């Protein structure tokens, strides 16, 4: 049931296998702030999940982070976002997390 409901999103995601355009980037920024924010904090300074600010992630590879975002961290509360995000979008978010300070 849960999986079925996600199917349309998955197809929509697959159709957009390209770096996110400006509109989608806005949506992704919003997703990071609000939906990731529910566990990592609005300012990404941590909550149930750890801090994911540029300082906290300074030593990390964006490719690895994109994988964490897509597949989650099994055994923890970090969910995989593959049903909702394309690989390019996850990579864009990884770069965004590493580069952009929160206000």
């Amino acid at each position, binding site marked *: 049931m849960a999986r079925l409901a996600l199917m349309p999103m998955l197809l929509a995601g697959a159709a957009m296998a390209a770096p996110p355009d400006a509109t989608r980037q806005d949506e992704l920024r919003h997703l990071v702030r609000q939906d990731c924010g529910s566990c990592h904090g609005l300012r990404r300074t941590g*909550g*149930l999940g750890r801090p994911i600010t540029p300082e906290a992630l300074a030593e990390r590879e964006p490719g690895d982070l994109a994988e964490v975002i897509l597949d989650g961290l099994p055994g923890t509360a970090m*969910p995989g976002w593959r049903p909702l995000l394309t690989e390019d979008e996850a990579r864009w978010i990884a770069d965004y997390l590493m580069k952009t300070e929160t206000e």
Partner: protein
Amino acid sequence: MLKAVLAALMLTITPAQADELRGTGDLGLIVERETGSLLVVDRSERAALGRIEGLGDLSHASLVYSPDERFAYVFGRDGGLTKVDILTRQVVRRVVQAGNSIGGAISDDGQLIAVANYEPGGVRVFDAETLELVADVPMGSKTVGIADAPGSRFIVATWDTGEVWIIDHSHSPAQPGITRLKGIGANPYDALLTSDGRRYIVGLFGEKGLTQIDLWQDPPEVTRFLPDYGRDQPDMPVYKMPHLQGWTLADGVFALPAVGLHQLLWVDADSLTEIARTELAGQPVFALARPDRREVWVNFAPPDNDKLQVVNTLTHEVLDTLTPGKGVLHMEFAPRGREVWLSVRDENRVEIRDTRSREVLGEIEARAPSGIFFTDRAHRTGL
């Protein structure tokens, strides 16, 4: 349009005069998480009266009221504990008491404010008048689901260590008695105390099942139940932790949001066994009984957070699916259930609906609203 102009005008009339004589029983506060502010609202007028600013990071913020319904204590994500006066609409006191906190509670005598912290993990208890630290109870773990139990007690669960702690301030506020219950289960994600103060129910994220603590027994009795409740597959993504606060006991039955599944579970409160399941439109976050308990209203995690579903308590059927708008984060019922206020975060408004006809009765502009809290909460246990 006219309404919007009026609302905008009203917001500029601050601060209020304390000598404008009025009651607070129909007032409320709406958390504006992006701007660190609170909107003071009047339920009878269905309007905003003004704004209180300067409360820091209010993502995931919650608040409790003083027994006289004049002051609110606001728990911010940034560890801030702020006391505000809803009549004068001012910050009375503010302390940043920890690095990262998740919620709080007020003791049944109104004297103590307890804050549950993630960082450093544990509970800190403050004097309700002065916000001075009264007791510090480190727990070495993130804490969740704090509630006020009768008799100057607080009860809380620990995420990392799977314990429940009961902090009893009845003998000496500064040297509380501690009861520590171990082996509650892996990663409690939230908990609820029933309004009679008897049952503390802990939801587990790290394993299946739920745990009930019966506070009427001495020592408190720990019971595991619903051994199949939980994530079906370990890798099932859960995009937002469900909230248990507000799972109300309706007609001897609990309505519980399933973790990760698109389902509501109905559990007989006496036998603690499942009696039914309702298929829902998404992963449930809040499942709140309307105050008359005749219906349970459910909102959802992303990507279904534009919807609400209304479920019949007796038949367990979905009666209605409403689509208020993007980011329906919170629902608050008028104390006697006549209307419900919904925060529609991404549309910067609060929508007011009739709980029977489901019609929209009004709308209030708010900046990225999340929690809505009416003052009648001052007189309810376990919030």
